[in-house]
């Protein structure tokens, strides 16, 4: 088995980064950024999710390319769901 084994230091660093992100998102919620409150919150959440997927879920080190394609497919179809739904619901009051 030529499996990649991540170091304890890496796992602890990712853990600390995730805790930092949690603190940051709670702090950012107390600031009045107008419409950018949602943007900042989602940007921090996505950064945390990417860290989890790449390092805790070992996607950065996988040699199976299909795994990455499956993940991109999931994101793509979720974005279709959101984009087409919002194209309807968000524009109903437009005149």
């Amino acid at each position, binding site marked *: 088995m030529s499996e990649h084994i991540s170091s304890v230091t890496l796992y602890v660093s990712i853990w600390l980064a995730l805790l930092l992100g949690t603190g940051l998102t709670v702090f950012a919620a107390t600031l009045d950024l107008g419409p950018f409150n949602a943007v900042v919150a989602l940007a921090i959440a996505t950064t945390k999710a990417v860290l989890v997927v790449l390092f805790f879920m070992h996607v950065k080190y996988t040699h199976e390319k299909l795994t990455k394609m499956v993940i991109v497919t999931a994101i793509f179809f979720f974005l279709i769901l*959101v984009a087409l739904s919002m194209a309807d619901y968000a524009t109903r009051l437009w005149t």
Partner: protein
Amino acid sequence: MHTSPAATDDHEAHDNPALLHHFATAEQQKDAASLGMWVFLVTEVMFFGGMFCAYLVYRYWYFGDFGAASSSLNLTLGTANTVVLICSSLTVAMAVRCAQVAKQKAIVVYLLLTIVLGLAFLGVKAKEYKDKFDENHVPGQASFHLDGSIPRHPDIAVNQRHAQIYFSLYFAMTGMHALHMIIGVGLFVFLTYRASKGAYGPGYYTPLENAGLYWHFVDIVWIYLFPLLYLIDRHP
């Protein structure tokens, strides 16, 4: 884990009893199991995705009411639970690593820690649910009432019907998430038992790895639920 006589021609079958005969190598077998798990997680993305999409639609329509309802949640407990879940993701990652480096006893320790953290999360969640029942913030109750006004508009009272939609989504999304946590804790109880029998090591730890993928996915769902449910319109 048995090896058929035909597979004994394959030299890898000799040193890895976990290798099934229809796979060429242990690596291929592990990749197949991992890919299958990822395809399952895609169906989970679409499952939670529907609820996230419903949330976005109603947040857009009932913007202020959602802000008022969100602020009624307990931010301290929500943040504490986020920290608990992130810690449990670390302990799972460490459990898998211990299998990779053949530390059999440490696998059991990290899995037990994960179970404790998972139960802590569920305990805090139960306390939050109880508070919502005590405060009459449960949608569908005749006594439902959310006091207060829309954020930054002290003259506009909260629309009770819109606030109930927020709490419907809150209970549906955190409830489905909690159900996934309960299933995850069940999986880890089984894996702890198997690990204590020495079932997992560098040659074979696929069940551990795949349960880990599931647990990290549930963590990611919470990473998005936390800001969307707890943190909207918190600023003055």
